[in-house]
């Protein structure tokens, strides 16, 4: 997945599992158009933090539930269908509806106290910071 350039780039087993997972996802999607990965995410990162963005049009902050556990971020929610009154009908219905849940695995454990999430014009932006104990530490070398 996305952090393969970041950490453990040399671990062949991790690369294998990643490939397998990607293949499974491909086959899961095949033929069942209703089971799409939603929401689509973009992930921005640096050494200290990760920023996840997702397009969730029509949802406000109360409709989206976010949880963080170890290295996983879970985004879930429900896209409700407009309730039709008597005499109303759909001519076209293209917008997705229903419950969704997506788990994203991060390249490092995060500080769960320092997670920043906001929704702006239908875009969810979650910023997560790397856990302090996981950060690389510079070790002084003393000359004797």
């Amino acid at each position: 997945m996305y952090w393969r350039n970041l950490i453990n780039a040399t671990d062949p087993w991790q690369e294998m599992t990643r490939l397998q997972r990607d293949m499974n996802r491909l086959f899961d999607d095949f033929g069942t158009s209703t089971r799409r990965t939603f929401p689509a995410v973009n992930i921005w990162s640096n050494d200290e933090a990760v920023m996840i963005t997702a397009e969730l049009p029509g949802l406000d902050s109360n409709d989206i539930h976010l949880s963080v556990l170890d290295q996983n971020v879970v985004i879930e929610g429900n896209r409700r269908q407009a309730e039709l009154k008597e005499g109303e009908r759909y001519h076209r219905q293209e917008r997705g509806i229903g419950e969704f849940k997506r788990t994203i695995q991060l390249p490092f454990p995060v500080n769960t106290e320092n997670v920043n999430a906001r929704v702006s014009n239908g875009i969810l932006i979650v910023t997560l910071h790397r856990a302090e104990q996981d950060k690389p530490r510079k070790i002084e070398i003393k000359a004797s």
Partner: protein
Amino acid sequence: MATNEKTIQKKETENIQKTERTRSGRVFTPATDIIETNNDIVLLADMPGLTKENIDVKLENNQLTIQGYVNPEIPKEYLLSYSEYDVGDYYRAFTLSDTIDQGKIEAEYKNGLLLLRLPKAEKAKSRQIAVNVD
């Protein structure tokens, strides 16, 4: 695989009225719901990432055109390390019938969702006709 998902999630516009664009970047067709009620036609379009000022709704010769121009926000000090969706402008056009009262169209943009309310003209509203029995 990321490209595969992209094509599933967002539909790119195939043809923009055969005119050429003066802006670079991709253009997407927003997913749209159209609901007819007794008094109006309601149009809901998914157009995340815009502001009210960057949305252009135009009506000309019964053609309703929706356009949205994005100013993509690129986070500073971050690198894009994984991508499933692209950001781009939005474009979609609909042909309306004469039954819409074109002077009373309302538009609203909230949470990345554009809502257009197209009121039906008086003559097009269905009327209940009472039948008298002697």
